């Protein structure tokens, strides 16, 4: 006990430190402080005195320099001449001293910045007369880049032209700073320097360096620039680019043929610069090349090309611009193309989009837009969008009315019946009818029957081309119209007679006219599928596609654009460059999705109308595009593709993309021919509730049964159970999955497992299984499993129950109780013998005076327990 007390007191005592040691330390730190401050004062005084000395020496030397600079032999008297010679001798003596030499050199270099004219020339001469340039030459030999650079700069600033040969050698120096300094020196010192530099440089020329060099050339007096076209064929791309810029700067328009060639250069900067030169020099011969290269260019280049076409082109280029406007899905390019069209042909039809008709504004609600109408109207709109015909489409409507109505057999042209001032946009139809204050239930039904149904559905006011239609605003007249059959045949003829596209379009661009739909009474059609709903769905989805093309793509940075354009070979394939003429390929193009003609296509018909007509390559590209830029709004389209597609590869890809962009995980069920949510499929699995509550033994039995009678639902469910920590169970699950795979066809290699928090993608390929989560090769005999899972070993099945109880609970429709920790005791079971052994070991260690813990902290922490043990005996 005494020993322990002493030990604890010893730990609490303050250690004794010798006073001598403290004194020694004080002395040491004092000396260090004195040395430190001494060094600071020494260097401070040294620098101050040096600065003072330099200043004094400058004051001493500057009058002498002034004397030299302004000495004029013609005006000088004998006395002046004598003074001059004395001064020269004196200054030569002074500069023998290294310090004075440096000061004098600095003074002259400083002064050359502040003076100009004849004084500056004298200054240059003085520098060389005094031999100050020799020191700069020596600096060129230094191994330190900063010294070499300083030497080059001094020689350059003081216009030591003799140094050109020495400096020019450094143009290809591996040290960047030296190289750049040498480049500027070469251009500054000699007129031929720029040529030599462009001939010899093997390195890149930075933008800043190009600017500096151009500035030097610009400020160079009496500079006769060489013909820079010489360097347009250089192997160094930077030289070509710089030469193009110099060409433009010095207006050297003798390289038109080469400029046209350079439009096809792979380097974007060179390409852009060449286009810029073409624009500046007005090289009209380049227009065809520019147009051919347009589709392979990035956005910047495209804008430049469009600018150039506008600048140099004529009305014959409008076709090209119109094609650009139609085919491009970049907003900026489209917009630019439109602006170019209007520049070239100011009187061309204005796109009336966004303009309001003030004549009807007072009468009608402004933007209750074109509602569903029917497929007829949709077709009309599509056609209208496609042909960009500014003239309003006049509609004749013919419809067979139900027998309950008084039908006049004679078709009536609506236009003829209407007052001229009642001509309005079709999108305003709804508004006019609202003003009529009809009885909703009756009148609307009538309207439905004559296809002049008033839509509550909102159509986007930005819908490109409003279809104009004549309507009678008076209720009675309207009712007359309602009661009269309205011909659609003429409309269809009108549509068919619309001027064809100036270029041969891909087939899907030409919307087929589905007249058969119009022959059906609207009422019946509405029974099958509400017009409002169908229209809403299709428009919404197609507007989403529009969003992809116009907003998402536009928000991408240029690199993304380039990447995106790379991924779209069809853009390149739009035109085939065949020497002189541009041939438009009549190849289906998925980009049609983004074209106006497809915007109004029904979503339900998307697969038949668009996707199924494409070859596998296009389908893949479309899916890639959806994957890259799509979001959850593409889910309906992807589902359509998965359901309708025969090609398993494309279907799988669509399924993967669907799972990628959706929060839910989907599974394609071949039996049902539908895309189902995995959660729902899993919920359908009858084994699920049993499996969740069963103990391990029961689970093994259930797995056997799943292997025999299970199908896709079970397969999905089992894949979600692979995350179990129980290795034997996991092994059995894998065996069951393999068994199921052999029995049922699997449409995809990948099954997505959804955890509570994470999504795990598990590949069902055997190779991946072996290399991935599980590495079991052999089946486990069930007998062994049974042996392993005795009652004692089921330590981890708390809350689970045997199979009989599982069914009992299900029959009683009660849920199992949650496992409770209430009766869980926080100690481990062990034998008394083991405890006695532990106590003995502890006592022995105590007797030895040792403490079982080692660290100081452990010793402190163990004090209370030791004291407690002591008090307890």
């Amino acid at each position: 006990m005494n020993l322990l007390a002493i030990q604890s007191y010893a730990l609490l005592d303050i250690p004794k430190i010798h006073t001598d040691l403290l004194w020694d330390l004080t002395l040491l730190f004092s000396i260090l402080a004195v040395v430190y401050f001494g060094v600071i004062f020494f260097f401070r005084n040294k620098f101050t005195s040096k600065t003072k000395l330099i200043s004094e020496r400058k004051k001493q030397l500057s009058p002498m320099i002034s004397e030299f600079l302004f000495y004029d032999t013609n005006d000088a008297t004998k006395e002046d001449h004598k003074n001059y010679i004395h001064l020269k001798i004196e200054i030569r003596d002074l500069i023998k001293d290294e310090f004075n030499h440096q000061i004098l050199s600095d003074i002259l270099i400083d002064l050359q910045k502040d003076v100009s004219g004849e004084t500056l020339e004298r200054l240059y001469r003085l520098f060389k007369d005094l031999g100050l340039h020799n020191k700069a030459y020596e600096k060129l030999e230094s191994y330190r880049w900063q010294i070499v650079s300083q030497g080059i700069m001094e020689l350059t600033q003081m216009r030591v032209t003799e140094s050109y040969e020495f400096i020019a050698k450094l143009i290809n120096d591996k040290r960047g700073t030296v190289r750049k300094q040498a480049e500027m020196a070469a251009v500054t010192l000699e007129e031929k320097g720029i040529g030599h530099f462009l001939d010899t440089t093997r390195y890149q020329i930075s933008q800043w360096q190009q600017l500096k060099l151009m500035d030097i050339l610009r400020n160079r007096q009496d500079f006769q620039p060489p013909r820079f076209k010489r360097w347009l064929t250089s192997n160094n791309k930077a030289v070509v680019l710089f030469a193009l810029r110099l060409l433009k700067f010095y207006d050297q328009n003798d390289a038109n043929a080469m400029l046209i060639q350079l439009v096809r250069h792979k380097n974007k900067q060179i390409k852009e610069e060449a286009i810029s030169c073409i624009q500046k020099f007005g090289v009209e011969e380049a227009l065809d090349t520019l147009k051919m290269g347009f589709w392979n260019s990035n956005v910047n280049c495209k804008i430049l090309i469009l600018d150039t076409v506008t600048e140099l082109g004529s009305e014959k280029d409008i076709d090209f611009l119109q094609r650009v406007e139609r085919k491009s899905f970049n907003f900026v390019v489209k917009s630019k193309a439109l602006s170019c069209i209007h520049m070239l042909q100011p009187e061309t039809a204005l796109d009336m989009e966004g303009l309001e008709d003030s004549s009807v504004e007072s009468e009608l609600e402004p933007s209750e837009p074109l509602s569903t109408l029917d497929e007829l109207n949709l077709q009309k709109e599509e056609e209208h969008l496609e042909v960009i015909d500014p003239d309003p489409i006049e509609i004749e409507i013919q419809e067979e009315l139900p027998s309950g109505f008084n039908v006049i057999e004679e078709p009536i042209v609506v236009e003829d019946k209407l007052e001229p001032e009642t001509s309005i946009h079709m999108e305003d139809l709804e508004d006019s009818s609202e003003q009529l204050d009809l009885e909703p239930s009756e009148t609307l039904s009538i309207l439905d029957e004559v296809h002049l149904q008033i839509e509550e559905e909102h159509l986007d006011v930005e819908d490109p081309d409003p279809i104009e239609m004549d309507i009678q605003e008076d209720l009675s007249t309207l009712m007359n119209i309602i009661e009269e059959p309205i011909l659609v045949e003429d409309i269809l003829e009108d549509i068919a007679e619309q001027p064809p596209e100036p270029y041969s379009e891909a087939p899907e661009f030409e919307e087929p006219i589905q007249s058969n739909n119009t022959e059906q009474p609207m009422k019946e059609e509405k029974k099958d599928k509400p017009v409002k709903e169908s229209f809403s769905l299709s428009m919404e989805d197609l507007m989403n596609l529009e969003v992809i093309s116009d907003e998402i793509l536009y928000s991408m940075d240029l690199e993304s654009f380039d990447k995106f354009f790379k991924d779209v070979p069809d853009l390149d394939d739009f035109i085939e460059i065949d020497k002189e003429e541009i041939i438009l390929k009549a190849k289906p193009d998925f980009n049609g999705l983004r074209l106006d003609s497809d915007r109004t296509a029904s979503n339900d018909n998307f697969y038949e109308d668009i996707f199924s007509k494409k070859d596998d390559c296009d389908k893949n590209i479309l899916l890639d595009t959806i994957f890259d830029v799509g979001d959850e709004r593409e889910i309906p389209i992807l589902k359509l593709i998965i359901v309708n597609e025969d090609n398993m590869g494309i279907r799988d890809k669509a399924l993967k993309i669907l799972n990628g962009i959706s929060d839910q995980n989907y599974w394609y069920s071949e039996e049902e021919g539908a895309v189902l949510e995995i959660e729902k499929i899993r919920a359908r699995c009858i084994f699920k509730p049993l499996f969740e509550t069963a103990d391990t033994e029961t689970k093994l039995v259930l797995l056997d049964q799943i292997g025999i009678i299970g199908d896709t639902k079970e397969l999905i469910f089992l894949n979600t159970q692979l995350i179990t920590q129980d290795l034997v169970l996991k092994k059995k699950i894998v065996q069951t999955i393999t068994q199921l795979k052999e029995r049922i066809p699997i449409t995809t290699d990948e099954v997505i497992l959804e955890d509570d928090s994470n999504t795990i993608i598990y590949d069902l390929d055997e190779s991946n299984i072996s290399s991935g989560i599980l590495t079991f090769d052999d089946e486990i005999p069930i007998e062994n499993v049974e042996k392993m899972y005795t009652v004692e070993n089921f330590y981890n099945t708390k809350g689970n129950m045997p199979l009989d109880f599982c069914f009992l609970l299900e029959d009683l429709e009660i849920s199992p109780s949650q496992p409770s920790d209430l009766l869980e005791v926080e100690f481990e079971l062990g034998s008394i013998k083991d405890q006695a052994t532990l106590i003995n070991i502890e006592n022995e260690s105590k007797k030895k005076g040792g403490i079982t813990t080692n660290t100081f902290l452990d010793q402190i922490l163990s004090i209370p327990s030791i004291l407690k043990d002591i008090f307890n005996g």
Partner: protein
Amino acid sequence: MDKKKLLLAEDDELLASLLTFRLEKAGYTVIRANDGKEVKEKLSEAIPDIIVSDIMMPYLSGLELIDFVRNQLALKIPIIIISSAGNEENVLSAFELGANDFISKPVSPTELLVRVARELRKV
């Protein structure tokens, strides 16, 4: 004939020394001031025939100097401003405040002499 007194306000000593030498050689009495404060002191001591001042100076800029001379001292002596090239805004301000002429850096001493002589002839 009395030498014309010229107040040279320039903070760059080397340039000031060079210009002083050249102006003195041309027959002017040059009073040098290295900053705005010194300019005020020199002006309080004696009124020069012409002032040549850098536009950028410590304590008192060239513009403030013009304002001081024209508005506070109410002097009509010619003032030539030395300004760095491209400092157009300051030059215009200087003319608005009453500067007579300006010369841009880098300065040609010969040109300065011509301008000084011209301004003095106008007086």
